[in-house]
């Protein structure tokens, strides 16, 4: 137990160093963009970027926890889509509360299916969640039959478009989730066991952590967070079709990686993901403001992700691949 704690402490201080380096890269991006684009530093644009980053963060939050255990949840986008479909169908029938509950429960169930398959079915997370990805998006197609549901009540849309004290509600919600998850990860036994499992599952088990049930809860939580993100996305764009969750997976993984969480588990944290999401949003905003041609944007994105991971490897001396 002592040994694990020491190890964690070690990682944690390195994480702080890492976050500092990320803050510098954000500052660099901000300075660079504000020099070449006069509109960049406007208050509205800053809120705009943070709001977009908040949504990206909410989509990546559950995934971060899973990746910390050295797992992967490929179903985040699909679960988001499925929850949105269920919630939207009830919402257009006028049953707002029921819609929210149904959306969250469907995410919880899909997440627990992931958790069950990984923890008790002993299926590799990649395969288990890949299967659930197909099931969830397939269910969405069957359920929606090509329909688009739109026009949700304004009271609901408040969480995606409203302002509180001049700050978009979405940002506040993402901030609250960030604080809760940060406390969960660093101040609770559950959080510490997440790092322990990711660091070394065998020693985690030997030190008395019930790895299986913890994994089950983590995947379930990831599903729940996906469905929560679904509600925010719905409120924001005011329509749902069965493809809403597609294309969300890869940016979600990118935000986690940019935030310095190792795909091999045990290293990183939720604050990093918030920063990763912010970097992603900054880069996209910058490319839009500068009018970078469509065809180049994906390539630029990929180069930035690779570049930042390489810089970590060689710059901070912290290897993302466990040696």
């Amino acid at each position, binding site marked *: 137990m002592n040994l694990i704690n020491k190890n964690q402490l070690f990682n944690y201080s390195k994480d702080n160093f890492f976050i500092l380096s990320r803050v510098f890269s954000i500052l660099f991006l901000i300075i660079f963009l504000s020099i070449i684009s006069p509109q960049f530093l406007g208050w509205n644009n800053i809120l705009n970027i943070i709001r977009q980053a908040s949504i990206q963060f909410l989509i990546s939050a559950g995934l971060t926890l899973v990746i910390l255990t050295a797992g992967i949840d490929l179903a985040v986008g699909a679960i988001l889509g499925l929850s949105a479909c269920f919630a939207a169908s009830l919402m257009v029938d006028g049953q707002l509360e029921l819609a929210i509950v149904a959306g969250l429960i469907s995410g919880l169930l899909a997440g627990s299916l992931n958790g069950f398959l990984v923890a008790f079915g002993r299926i590799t997370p990649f395969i288990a969640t890949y299967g659930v990805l197909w099931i969830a998006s397939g269910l969405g197609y069957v359920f929606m039959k090509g329909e688009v549901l*739109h026009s949700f009540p304004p009271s609901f849309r408040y969480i995606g478009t409203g302002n509180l004290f001049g700050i978009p509600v979405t940002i506040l919600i993402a901030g609250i989730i960030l604080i809760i998850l940060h406390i969960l990860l660093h101040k609770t036994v559950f959080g510490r066991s997440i790092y322990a499992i990711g660091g070394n599952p065998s020693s985690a088990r030997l030190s008395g952590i019930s790895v299986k049930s913890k994994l089950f809860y983590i995947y379930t939580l990831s599903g729940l967070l996906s469905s929560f993100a679904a509600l925010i996305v719905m409120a924001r764009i005011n329509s749902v079709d069965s493809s809403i969750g597609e294309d969300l997976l890869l940016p979600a993984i990118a935000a986690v990686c940019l935030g310095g969480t190792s795909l091999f588990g045990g290293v990183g944290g939720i604050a990093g993901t918030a920063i990763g999401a912010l970097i992603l949003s900054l880069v996209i905003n910058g490319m839009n*403001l500068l009018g970078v041609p469509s065809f180049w944007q994906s390539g630029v994105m990929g180069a930035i992700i690779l570049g930042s991971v390489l810089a970590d490897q060689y710059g901070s001396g912290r290897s993302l691949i466990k040696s």
Partner: protein
Amino acid sequence: MDRRNFIKYNSIIALGGLAVTTFAQGNKPITIAFFVKNVTNPFWKGCRIGAEKAAKELGVSLEVVAPTKPDNIEEQTRLVEDWIVKKPDAFVFVPVDFKALVPSIQKVNKAGIPVVGYNNRMTDVDLVSYIGSDDELIEYEASTFLFKSMGGKGKIVHIDGVPAASTAQARKKGLERALKDFPGIELLVSQPGQYRRLPAVQVFENLMQRYPEIDGVVSANDDMAVGIAEALISAGRANKTKVIGVDGIPDALAAISAGKMFATADFSGHDQAYLAVHAAVRNLRKLSVPKEIKLPIVIISKQNISSFPSTPEERSVPSWDKTVASQK
């Protein structure tokens, strides 16, 4: 289940009515494999409903074939191969990519199954008939309509589809052609919205920061256009910017009625698919079918929205004879 029974009963009724024809064909009900690009975009739902109406009328059975992953080339290629083996009486086909699917349709030609194309034109394949319109023309007409309403001057933003998609490239060309006709219109920027609402909204929010004055937005489809209109409302800029889309999906029609969105250009997938199934069945029944049917593009704006039913189910079907007669 419902639909199947429905088609079955109707087939029986129609078979009775067309006893002579069916007798000549050996009493086997006609099966048409009807392809769509995906089951997520409402445009293709409109197509499916148009095709189902035709199948019901003609008393044939219709099998809707769609890739589970939207617009997936590899998957549609496999689906075509599967359906060659199943040997339907005819294919009514739209390629997810007009070039990539050419070899597959050539295989269908080799297998001797007649193919009617709709919505996206293909070359180097043998089609009984092609029913559609073209992407370049529709974006040209939509842009022209917008530019005229702006009095021929002002600043516009273009939200592109998936940059690599052939439909997006053709639509962009249509916009560029319209821009040449209106030298007073300035294209501020063209950025991709991936044909989807969430990315389009985010890109457009970023662009609103850069450009405090945008007079018009040309969106490559309606799904994005509705999102853009919403983003303008959230930013309090709704009455300064006119948004035009393409496709005529129900969501967009609702937005136009509510005054949120300026206009859309209707392709009428519903009519295309309806006529395509008719063409396929007429061909099987040895009736004349023109090599190509071009459908007129209709711009739907606040002025004429009341004459457009908001869902494809309520739409009236075009008359085959009249449509064919109007071709020349």
